[in-house]
């Protein structure tokens, strides 16, 4: 295996799928000549030309809708939102059109489309640019929602998303684009199935379920906790809809306690969904209430000291694990 950055892994996924299937194209703001606002699409214009790497004006509702229409007619668009914060002006296209037309047409129309881009807080970009969007989209039947934490998952899941016959919400992390990780060698094709969780770190004392940016916070916390004699098992759902609870349930049956750590707000969303399912599917095995460490329930402030408070921290993860382990 070689090491790639998260953004390079995403780029490879798009490049390989565009090579493989003429119907796949990339559309969005600054994806072509500018080489991508976050350089995810760097080099793709040179490789595929303007027909398949399409720069758009600032018109998210317009180009999201164009993508959906093109998908209905048989193409396989990748629609890049410069950030998921801007998807809100295209919300109607995604919710009312992409997610609905398959059933509304009794299965006659398919919408094979990927909406992707960076999600969640970056650094000090304040309230309008820091949304962690999983809760909005996971609520909608008719969509798949994927939020990969590592370069390997990013590549393998994006390839599966592009080949899917359904609309996929693909939530990347702006702060993850530079993260390096192992990815299968060139020429070794890996498709990671949508809807499969992954055991990240085995452990015996407490289960932590996490994904996205806090994944790395959790791994650091788990290291510290192991130094204090608390051995954490970490599970990453990778796909948030459909949600694969198999590994987390098995894990909780073993550790008898669980903390769910996520960036999105605490009210509802996949974090609350996981807690709901675990309390039903592993009720008899729980030795402590399920805990969550979440983004704080406030719009994101600009000041760095405040932003650091809002996002899940190692300290908050460690405290929560100690609480459920009755070790504090």
């Amino acid at each position: 295996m070689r090491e790639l950055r998260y953004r390079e892994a995403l780029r490879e996924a798009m490049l390989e799928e565009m090579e493989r299937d003429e119907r796949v194209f990339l559309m969005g703001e600054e994806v072509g000549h500018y080489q991508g606002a976050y350089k995810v699409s760097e080099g793709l214009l040179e490789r595929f030309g303007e027909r398949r790497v399409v720069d758009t004006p600032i018109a998210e509702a317009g180009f999201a809708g164009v993508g959906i229409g093109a998908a209905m007619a048989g193409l396989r668009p990748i629609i890049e939102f410069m950030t998921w914060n801007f998807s809100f002006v295209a919300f109607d296209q995604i919710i009312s059109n992409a997610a609905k037309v398959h059933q509304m047409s009794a299965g006659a129309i398919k919408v094979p489309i990927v909406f992707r881009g960076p999600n969640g807080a970056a650094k000090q970009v304040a309230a309008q640019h820091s949304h962690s969007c999983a809760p909005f989209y996971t609520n909608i039947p008719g969509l798949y929602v994927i939020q990969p934490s590592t370069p390997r998952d990013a590549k393998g899941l994006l390839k599966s998303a592009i080949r899917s016959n359904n609309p996929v919400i693909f939530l990347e992390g702006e702060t993850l684009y530079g993260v390096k990780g192992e990815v299968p060698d060139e020429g070794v094709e890996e498709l990671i199935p949508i809807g499969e969780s992954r055991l990240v770190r085995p452990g015996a004392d407490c289960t932590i379920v996490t994904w996205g940016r806090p994944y790395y916070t959790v791994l650091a916390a788990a290291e510290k906790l192991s130094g204090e004699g608390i051995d954490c098992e970490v599970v990453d759902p990778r796909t948030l809809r459909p949600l694969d609870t198999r590994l987390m349930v098995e894990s909780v049956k073993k550790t008898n306690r669980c903390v769910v750590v996520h960036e999105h707000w605490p009210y509802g969303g996949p974090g609350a969904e996981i807690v709901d399912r675990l309390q039903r599917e592993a009720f008899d095995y729980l030795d402590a209430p399920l805990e969550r460490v979440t983004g704080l329930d406030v719009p994101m402030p600009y000041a760095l000291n405040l932003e650091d408070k809002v996002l899940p921290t190692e300290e908050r993860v460690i405290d929560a694990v100690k609480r459920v382990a009755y070790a504090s």
Partner: protein
Amino acid sequence: MQNKDDLLRQYRMMMVMRRFEEEAARNYAKGKIGGFLHLYIGQEAIAVAVTEVLEERDYIFQTYRDHGIALARGMSAKAGMAELFGKDTGCSRGFGGSMHFFDVDRGFLGGWAIVGGHLALAAGTAFKSKYAGEDSVTVCFFGDGSINIGGFHEAMSLAGLWKLPVVFVCENNQYAMGTPLERTSPLKDLSIKAKGYGMVGDRFDGHDVEVVQARINEAVDRARTGGGPTFIEVLTYRFRGHSMSDPAKYRTTTELEQRKQQDPITVVREKLMGLGVDESALDDIDLEVDEEIDEAVRFADESPPAREDLMMSTVMAPEGES
């Protein structure tokens, strides 16, 4: 001037649409049809003219006032009526209802019920035509109520920018639900908006099927031959309220009666008689259409209900190569 046979065919189709809607209204009152029901009565010439011009490979999008165009495109009255009745034999198998007719095999890609939301989809199928080097054209209908919402602006912007093979047909029936155009738009002539999007604009009356056909034909030709999109404003009028729950108290009886003088069906009928067609021959067509629609209602009534087992299985499309 079209020949008599074309006009007779168009007359018959307009009668099918008219009777279909009248029966739909009756069955709505009886409680056989639920939800919202928006009738196309008064606007028939437009849908008929458009489908006369289009090829099989072309795409059509419409708003929730979608029965007329679906029938004109060749959907059977049975499949349409059964959909209104929420039956498995309906064109959307009971999952769409009045506002979401679909007939994919005939390129009818739906009735859409969020105002302005489907214009970008139409730009999308046109994008596909251009991307794939195909000469198919997309026609997208919407009402005068759509012209102020963002979806209109963004779809028009992209279609104009990329010179997509799409024809935007604004069926200006003078009212956005209950609000007349002069209270929603500073412009009387909406077609001048086309200029702002770098596309050709056109504007004409929609009660004479021959006029509509000729003018739509120009726009479709332009799209098919790489000349880019057209924005058309067709002046029309609906003889019923916005939907079944609307008594249309915002307009006068005099206005309605005046408009009915230009009933597109009467216009064709008079033309045909001018061409020497016997009134009794037209009456025979009317009777035949009555029977077809009665049969559609019977069919809808007797059809099996929408299938519960399809409810979960149609949320996501099956995976695998496609």
